[in-house]
């Protein structure tokens, strides 16, 4: 509680302090508009505000929404939600040495976490050392998830419930980029703390990698004692798009304690492929991600927790108008559509040999208005149906969501 009070105090005082500063001292740090920005650049490719010549820049974003959802005829009524407020602080210590941190408040102050806090040292564009709390670069969404960048209020189900979105851990690694004409090649590789046995022992009653996010100790100790390896290679061409291939894997269970063997080493392996492009003729933005999860679940455990999962999403965003609306010059209205699918448990029942069901499919049409690039007002309709492990008649959920998200 004292920590929360302290954080709130600092934030309030920071806000007051900025309010007393001559606005002419505030300076927007120009974003890199080279067009060769990649998902891996997302953590720094954000609007920051610098105060005078101080070497520290501030930024952040906030998301709030209203929703009315109904599941199989039952609704919880009208809900207003402050999903999250994120505050970034970056600092260029010297040229080629910088520090960035991101503190996120979710659902009011229900969850407060340091999502990112790393020191980057550039030895060479191809060789940068990063250490601290890093985002494990599995898929693209985990790297590039700021709310104001998306036309959809909910984060993609495959990226948040199958993969652990915003999964960050303490660790070290390297990243780098190589430019060659219209092409840019990039890599990231990290060794961090990682998963724990909650991924197969959780109240979701299914293999659920995000359950490990509930373990705050991952920032100070590794549950398994083995490092989690996360690596990604990506290539981007301005005319074609960006393709990323990523892997994350390691031992998730506590296989020994005090030198005594408890179990064999059990691994979790995740593979993901992501792609995004903009169709030049129509300016349609397409963003897709697909991932596979493989978990070594003990044979004597329960088939409720699957050994294999797969799923992904694809977003289409079509700008419809770019015009002055309510005085906001060059504001954009988009139509968008998201399709999502996750098979939580790929395989067959031992008892019957029949397919294990347990999947979810979702469709989300949307309309968004961007008065500026940093702010979005979104109106979504969400419809999903999911079948239980046995494949019984699906549960259906649908509803309407309206939300705002903005960098500040």
């Amino acid at each position, binding site marked *: 509680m004292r920590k929360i009070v302290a954080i709130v105090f600092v934030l309030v005082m920071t806000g007051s302090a900025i309010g007393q500063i001559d606005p002419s001292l505030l300076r927007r740090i120009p974003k890199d508009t080279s067009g060769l920005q990649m998902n891996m650049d997302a953590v720094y490719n954000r609007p920051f505000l610098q105060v005078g010549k101080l070497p520290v820049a501030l930024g952040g974003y906030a998301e709030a929404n209203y929703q*009315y959802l*109904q*599941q*199989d*005829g*039952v*609704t919880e009524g009208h809900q207003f939600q402050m999903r999250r407020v994120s505050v970034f602080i970056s600092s260029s210590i010297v040229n080629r040495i910088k520090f960035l941190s991101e503190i996120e408040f979710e659902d009011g102050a229900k969850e407060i976490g340091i999502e990112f806090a790393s020191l980057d040292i550039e030895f060479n564009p191809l060789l940068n050392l990063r250490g601290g709390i890093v985002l494990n670069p599995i898929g693209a969404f985990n790297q590039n998830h700021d709310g104001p960048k998306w036309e959809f209020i909910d984060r993609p189900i495959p990226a948040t419930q199958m993969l652990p979105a915003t999964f960050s851990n303490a660790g070290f690694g390297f990243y780098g980029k190589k430019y060659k004409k219209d092409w840019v090649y990039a890599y990231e590789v990290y060794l961090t703390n990682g998963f724990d*046995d*909650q991924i*197969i*022992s*959780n*109240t*979701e*009653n299914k293999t659920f990698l995000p359950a490990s996010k509930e373990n705050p100790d991952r920032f100070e100790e590794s549950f398994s004692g083995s490092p989690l390896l996360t690596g990604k290679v990506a290539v981007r061409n301005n005319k074609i798009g960006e393709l990323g291939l990523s892997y994350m894997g390691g031992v998730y*269970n506590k296989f020994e304690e005090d030198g005594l063997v*408890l*179990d064999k080493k*059990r691994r979790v392996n995740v593979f993901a492929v992501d792609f995004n492009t903009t169709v030049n003729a129509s300016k349609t933005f397409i963003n897709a991600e697909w991932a596979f999860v493989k978990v070594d679940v*003990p044979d*004597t*455990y*329960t*088939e*409720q927790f699957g050994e294999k999962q797969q799923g992904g999403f694809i977003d289409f965003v079509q700008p*419809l*108008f770019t015009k002055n609306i309510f005085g906001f010059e060059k504001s954009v*209205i988009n*139509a968008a559509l998201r399709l999502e699918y996750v098979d939580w448990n790929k395989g067959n*029942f031992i*008892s*019957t040999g*029949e397919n294990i*069901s347990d999947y979810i499919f979702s469709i989300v*049409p949307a*309309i968004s208005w961007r008065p500026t690039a940093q702010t979005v007002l979104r*109106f979504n*309709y969400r*419809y999903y149906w999911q079948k*239980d*492990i*046995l*494949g*019984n*008649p699906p549960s*259906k*959920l*649908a*509803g*309407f969501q309206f939300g705002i998200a903005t960098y500040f």
Partner: protein
Amino acid sequence: MGKSTIILFLLTAMLACNKLLPDAPADDEILDGPLAGLTGEENAIFIRGDVAFNDDVFTSAKGLGPLFVATSCGSCHAGDGKGHPFTTLTRFGQSDTVNGNVFLHRGGPQLQNRAIPGFVPEQIPAGATSSKFTPPANTGLGFLDAVPDASILALADPNDANGDGISGRPNWITPKSYSSFRPNSISQNGKYIGRFGKKAATYDLLQQTATAYNQDIGITSVYEPVDTYSGQDIGAEVSEQTVLDVVFYLQTLKAPVQRNPNDADVIAGKQLFLNIGCDKCHTPRLTSGPSTIAALSNKTFFPYTDLLLHDMGSGLNDGYTEGIALPQEWRTPPLWGLGLSKNSQGGSYFLLHDGRARSIEEAILLHGGEGVQSRTAFQQLNTSDKSKLIKFLESL
């Protein structure tokens, strides 16, 4: 199509709210849901029990196992319906009514066939006989619980005095110390009538719930405090209130609602059901006695069971039993909700006590012992009449 038209179309589609929100399934299409006529306070308890039953998933941190069969109540009873072979129970250790279960010290009567990581599940000990039990539907249990003992005894004919070939009898059991006797309970030599479970060896829903937490999930309670793995009293891992909420939930789940009762084939099928004598065990109508829950008091309902044990022949004799039931004796299972079984069993039937019958017709044909007469009569029906009879059963 112009851009304005696209926006207008999308907005109109989104704002057609009522058409775009999923409706509740019809009352007769699902098994879950509360009894009509519960008070506000009873509804609140029902919801608590619903959450505990369907949403409360046990993990090792919450006391799961270490040996178990399932991780939650809802895992075995999806939608409050019948279960699937995935969560079928195995019981072992009692082959006759004389010696009782001689494998209690070896983990009997229930096999915990799963274990949390690092532990080894139970195996059926050499020499023990066993039987598989498919989880039953939960609906309407409160009505069955409220049937007076005298009504059950009135249906019994242990010596087949009327010579119809049917000789149902109650399973006289010793209730758990924590069970409360029903008003006007009838005892025989200190034993009471069991009415739940495949062998009618469970006295009431409190025993059913507490033992299911303990034997199925490996969760102890004040009622069943002994850990199935260590054999030690380890105190309660689930609160007494939660157990009682689940008992209340099971008591107050509605009775299945028959579909298409006025369909001509269903009406004809019902008549055939009566004509070939199915109703001699699958008693269509019962009446509850007084209950502390007004919605259950003195109600007439249609479960199609007599809650009695019947000899089902050697084909259904697994060599395992409970209480005074002979290995080939089984309690008449209620037929209400039968037509919705597929919706909780993954789209296909797994019928009879162990799910061996993959269709209603196969289940009928596997009836032996006291059921032979009706089975033979069914076999002699023409195809059309068989179809009508099955249509009636599927309407339940």
